[in-house]
């Protein structure tokens, strides 16, 4: 090869390298915690997957603002009538789906009916089918939804990405393949999807809210924490949206990164008792053990920056949250006294005994819960309770919990409506035993209050009902609320204006990469 050819090749390579950099206005986000299974918001099961879809490809009729207030999105206004059974929505004009189909009342009707149709197998299909009686097109930009009963939190329900708007044309054309050909009204359009590898999106130049500043978003799906660390440090990704708490201090010390310690998310975690079998079928035992566990200490020392302590089964950004609710006091002496009052006395080995039986309980735990439960084991040992840990794989864990083969477990909840109804009804109504209500909590009075609050259309009265429910539940202590997860992110310093809402939706309109 002659010298001239070598020189030309060098120039060519250099040009390629420079032009690649000049062309790359790409934001690289990692989202490894859950794999997206369906690019169809009606079918996608993972919460993280829905967050992603809702931030990029799809919009809903309504959404949340930065303080979780309900805001217009594809619907510009809404009102309820006839005692809360009829909801009328005025739709935004001039919006089109990515394939050019106009967004109008027919599209809304199609989407709602699609979610309700059992053939769709929509994840929230049964939930919405329990609420919605019919959908009617009044005119091209007005749609009326009639409910089966007055459901007060219907507007928050429509903020959920599970009922986001998909293009009727594309859904009909592609059928079951629609989930690989997503077509919404969102700020980004799918360009390429390599399952579990990356997702490539390009901006929607006709987005109704304005043109996004970033041209391309590349979403990688790195699961392994050490690899995420390396990818951030080497510059292969720009943003990690759910960083492990151990990373935060390290990246705060690195001037090339910005760590944003945001506010609380909707996702909270709790320790559930088995309310149906001894010893935790006794409220006094549950209360005593709640005093024995140093929840605040666990959140601070074990969970570190992962979350903040909560005192009720609702996050502070959820409508219905009661700011007056106090946390269960950590008081081992009080725990011992309470247990002694009901006959639990220390045996020769220090473990409590009653009627010849030792106080031995079992916790079902899964991966990454060991440290928390080791601390709980220690706390309970101090009051004379022998806690044994049963580490299980996820499927076996769910099965054991449903069968009631446990005394304590630890799980989390994350519903996107931002309203107390879905949170409380799911977890505490007896009709949901033993699935969502795995703690098997049964209180007929609470059941009645839960049913009553969802039909109460007066906001103040409803709020009072919800607060009463929370107080009654926390008096029964069927579970111990543990922590609310925080919105922490790590971004490369060249990324500007990256923001995550409390409902985990990313605001990608103004984000830019220098």
């Amino acid at each position, binding site marked *: 090869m002659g010298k001239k050819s070598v020189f030309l090749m060098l120039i060519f390579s250099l040009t390629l390298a420079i032009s690649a950099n000049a062309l790359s206005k790409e934001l690289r986000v990692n989202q490894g915690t859950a794999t997206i*299974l*369906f690019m169809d918001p009606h*079918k996608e*099961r*993972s919460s993280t997957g829905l967050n992603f879809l809702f931030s990029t490809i799809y919009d809903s009729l309504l959404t949340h603002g930065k303080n979780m207030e309900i805001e217009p999105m594809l619907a510009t206004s809404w009102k309820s009538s006839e005692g809360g059974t009829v909801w009328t929505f005025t739709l935004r004009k001039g919006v089109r789906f990515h394939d050019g189909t106009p967004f109008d009342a027919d599209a809304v009707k199609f989407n709602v009916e699609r979610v309700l149709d*059992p053939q769709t*197998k929509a*994840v929230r*299909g*049964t*939930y919405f089918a329990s609420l919605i009686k019919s959908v009617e097109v009044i005119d091209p930009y007005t749609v009326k939804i009639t409910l089966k009963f007055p459901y007060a939190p219907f507007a928050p329900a429509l903020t959920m990405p599970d009922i986001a708007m998909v293009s009727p044309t594309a859904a009909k054309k592609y059928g*079951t393949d629609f*989930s*690989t050909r997503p077509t919404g009204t969102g700020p980004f359009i799918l360009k390429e999807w*390599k*399952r*579990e*590898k990356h997702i490539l999106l390009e901006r929607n130049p006709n987005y109704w809210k304005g043109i996004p500043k970033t041209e391309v978003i590349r979403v*990688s*799906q*790195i*699961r*392994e924490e*050490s*690899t995420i660390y*390396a*990818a951030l*440090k*080497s*510059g*292969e990704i720009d943003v990690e949206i759910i960083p492990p708490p151990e990373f935060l201090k390290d990246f705060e010390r690195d001037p090339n990164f910005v760590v944003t310690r945001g506010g609380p998310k909707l996702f909270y975690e709790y320790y559930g008792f088995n309310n149906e079998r001894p010893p935790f079928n006794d409220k006094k035992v549950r209360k005593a053990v709640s005093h024995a566990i140093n929840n605040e200490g666990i959140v601070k020392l074990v969970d570190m920056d992962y979350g903040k302590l909560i005192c009720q089964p609702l996050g502070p950004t959820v409508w219905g949250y009661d700011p007056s609710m106090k946390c269960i006091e950590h008081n081992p002496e009080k725990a011992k006294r309470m247990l002694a009052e009901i006959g639990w006395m220390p045996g020769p080995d220090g473990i409590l005994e009653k009627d010849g039986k030792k106080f031995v309980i079992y916790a079902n735990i899964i991966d990454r819960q060991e440290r928390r439960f080791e601390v709980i084991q220690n706390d309970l040992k101090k009051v004379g309770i022998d806690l044994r840990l049963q580490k299980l*794989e*996820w*499927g*076996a864990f*769910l*099965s*054991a919990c*449903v069968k009631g083969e446990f005394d304590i477990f630890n*799980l989390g*909840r*994350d*519903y996107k409506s931002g309203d107390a109804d879905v949170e409380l009804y*799911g977890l505490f109504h007896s009709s*949901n035993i033993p*699935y*969502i209500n*795995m703690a098997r909590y049964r209180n007929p009075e609470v059941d009645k209050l839960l049913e009553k609050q969802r039909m109460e259309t007066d906001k103040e009265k409803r709020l009072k009902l919800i607060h009463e429910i929370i107080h009654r539940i926390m008096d029964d202590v069927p579970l111990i609320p543990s922590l609310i997860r925080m919105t922490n992110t790590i971004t490369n310093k060249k990324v500007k204006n990256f923001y995550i809402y409390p409902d985990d939706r990313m605001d990608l309109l103004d984000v830019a990469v220098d």
Partner: protein
Amino acid sequence: MLGYVIKKLLLLVPIVLCVSTVVFFMIHLIPGDPAHVLAGPQATREDIENLRRQLGLDKPIWVQYFTFLKKISQLDFGRSLRTDEKVIVEIWDRYPNTLRLAFSATLFSILVGIPIGVFASLKKNSILDGLSMTGSILGMSMPDFWLGLILIYIFAVKLKWLPGIGFDTFKHIVLPTITLGSFATAYVARMTRSSMLETLKQDYILAAKAKGLSLGTVLFKHALKNSMIPVVTVVGLGFSVMLAGSFVIETVFVINGLGWLIVRAILMRDFPVVQGGIFLISCTFVIVNILVDIAYAYLDPRIKFKD
């Protein structure tokens, strides 16, 4: 030989059928309700029951088994319970990556392990021999997960010479190949050394040296080929193990491969994907064994295939 190969290929059918049957019943015996695992902990009883019906999981196990047999006789592995994608598409998206990774790691083990083994056998009991065998012990002892992360840290984070994630270009292949191939390289080096030492003791080698043949000729024309039978066995086995056990490397380097697909399918009780993946790995295993047998015949013409 052709007859031998055809006979072995025909044996594929009962072997794969047995493996598939065993796997079918094993995964159905794992505790856990697949419908609940797939629906998630926030699903209601009604959601779970609906999903169970939709996926055919409400049918008795014998009905499910015969449905499965009928389908695989037509090479139809059905759809993933999790993604509703055709199993064949899910697997075919990932299998080439796993194959490429296993192949490059095997090639690495041959190109690096054999020369080290040969060198060590020629310098027996020297410092260089000691160093190379210590290196091979390290290669066999280091967890591949740890090695992969160390290599990413050095070459991707600190030196920025190579990318740490992905598998698209030649540069991407380097670190995963070294990581996955390190154990096999160490093993091949040790096997080559011990096999070469045995061969170099043989009378015909002494005769070759006595005839005045050069070291190169003695080594490459006479000794090496005759030492390769145990090495080929180890390489063949190693390739199959890499195919099945690559999911750790796939996780560390974010490679969309078959290993992680199968592991996750087991965790999520996605039975059709497990069946399809194991079916493919079984077939590959049998084919690799056939290739190893053919290699034996090439290396040692005394080995004949009986029809």
